[in-house]
């Protein structure tokens, strides 16, 4: 079973993340960039499926040259090869453009049975790209997976959202996006790190992937960030003075916030 995992390099959630002043796109220079943790889980799931069913795991990313580091991390975990779509014209692409571009790149990988992705990147927080990629490719989309099983030509998923858990299945080929609960990603072993150096990474420009430059990039995006402001600092919140009824009042507060 051949699996493609969509991965993204994002600013480390521990560092300060900001948008550039000039065009409100992500300021990649101001933060440490890492493979998004949810993508590590997607890679982990792909490797587990590969251990059970064989086949090849290909990681795919779209991003600047530095995104190679994210691919190497996935390769050091055990993925077999990588494809990197990198072109200055992609800068500032919106979710729809990104999904179309990724669909083209997935099309360059032969015999794909399953596309895996994280359900939402920690930087954009759109949570839309996996479903859009499935739409473009005409694949069933099984999103928010907390468990994935493949049986023959069927993929079964436990889909967990705020509303509850749904048990869904689809015929392969399909796209599955995974949530935080799916697994604990492995650490790259030293041998994995050394082996990653020798694994093939194909770098594609727009033309190589058959993407029209007029369809991507900030100038052609359907959505525009008009304005951005930093999050306001946390306000003081509500103080509960304990006059013997502190516990009850805290419970009331939490109940009012629908937290209990």
């Amino acid at each position, binding site marked *: 079973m051949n699996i493609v995992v969509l991965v993204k390099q994002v600013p480390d959630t521990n560092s300060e993340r900001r948008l550039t002043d000039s065009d409100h796109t992500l300021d990649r220079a101001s933060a440490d960039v890492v493979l998004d943790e949810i993508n590590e889980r997607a890679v982990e799931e792909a490797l587990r499926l590969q251990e059970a069913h064989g086949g090849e795991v290909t990681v795919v990313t779209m991003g600047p040259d530095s995104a190679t*580091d994210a691919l*190497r*991390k996935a390769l*050091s975990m055990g993925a077999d090869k990588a494809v990197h779509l990198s072109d200055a014209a992609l800068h500032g692409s919106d979710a729809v453009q990104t999904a179309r571009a990724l669909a083209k790149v997935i099309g360059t990988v032969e015999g794909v049975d399953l596309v895996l992705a994280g359900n939402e990147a920690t930087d954009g927080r759109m949570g839309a790209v996996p479903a859009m990629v499935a739409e473009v490719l005409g694949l069933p989309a099984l999103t928010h997976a907390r468990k994935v099983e493949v049986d023959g030509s069927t993929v079964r998923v436990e889909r967990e959202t705020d509303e509850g858990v749904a048990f869904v299945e689809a015929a392969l080929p399909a796209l599955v996006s995974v949530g935080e609960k799916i697994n604990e990603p492995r*650490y*790259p*072993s*030293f*041998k994995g*790190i*050394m082996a*990653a*150096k020798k694994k093939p990474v194909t770098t594609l420009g727009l033309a190589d992937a058959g993407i029209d430059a007029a369809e991507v990039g900030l100038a052609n995006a359907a959505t525009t960030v008009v304005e951005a402001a930093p999050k306001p600092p946390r306000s003081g919140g509500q103080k509960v003075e304990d006059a013997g009824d502190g516990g009850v009042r805290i419970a009331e507060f939490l109940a009012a916030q629908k937290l209990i």
Partner: protein
Amino acid sequence: MDFQESDEHRALRSAVAALAAKYGHEYWVEKARSGEKTTELWAEAGRLGYLGVAVPEEYGGGGGGITELSIVCEELAAGGCPLLLLVVSPAIAATVIARSGTPEQRGTWLPGFADGSVRMSFAITEPDAGSNSHRITTTARRDGDGWRLTGRKVFISGVDETDTTLVVSRLADSRTGKLRPAMFLVPNDAPGVEYQPIPMEFTSPERQFTMFFDDARLPEESLVGGEDAGLAALFAGLNPERITVAAYACGIGRYAVSKGAAYAGSRSVWGRPIGAHQAVAHPLAKAHIEVDLASLATRRAAWAYDADDPATGEYANSAKYAAAEAAIGAVDAAVQAHGGNGMTSEYGVGTLWGAVRAARIAPVSREMILNFVAQHTLGLDRSY
């Protein structure tokens, strides 16, 4: 000249740092306090090949060198989990066996060092010989098709969590009758071998032991490298020991500086974080610089060792000296920035005081390093 680490070295650093973060300093302290061992961390690091980075590939290791092992050692310590046994087992014992062991000894032991399943102690120091390894009195004599070992060792790390100890001793040369160094692989449970813990005043999951060898009977194959291995076999292990202790101290130094800076940045008195005051900030900045310099010296020493550079001895000594001093300064600055909290168990800074203080003494004291540099580098007369 290129000071940028390779992609693989950076990836190894980040992977080991992530593993250390999973366990954290509280895990390490808890193990030390309860008398338990860091078994889970050791086993996981072993499975991931981090403990066997320097073991040759043909024996299942990573095929790297002391450079990679130093990265592992530093990053575990920087994550609050300094492992003393890393210095003893993979750095000394595995290196000695890989470099000087017979083909049979390599085949027997190296696969276990590669995945961390073998843990080995190292015994050199004696009550009456101290740092002077030429005055070692533990002696082996021929006994039919094996050996008899007699002597006493002190400050041997982790004997209660290893199966075997690599013991530095002396052997009567069959031709000249003169005593010369020889190393033996001694099962800790062999008849005639006893060990007792030495109560120590520092936080460490690894305990220290006195070992006694009373005419302990050893098989023929326990002599490392056979009768002709001698001094070269011993020295193959001592530089990696110094270099990995330096890496261990640098890691603790980084951990302390980061704890100190985080506290100084978040603790507010009179409306400002205490780190805004130079009296608090400068000692931490100084500690950062000194740890960073020591880390550079450590990388140079590791590089030299892996490249068989003749200056390895001096570089390893310099790195060990600089790293111990920098780490002591870093822990001290971090404790001071924390005030009273620095001495509490909760804040996890004072817990490292013993470990860094010991690094000024072991495996070779600050004074013996200064003697070495005065004599060998500066050409001054020997004082002893």
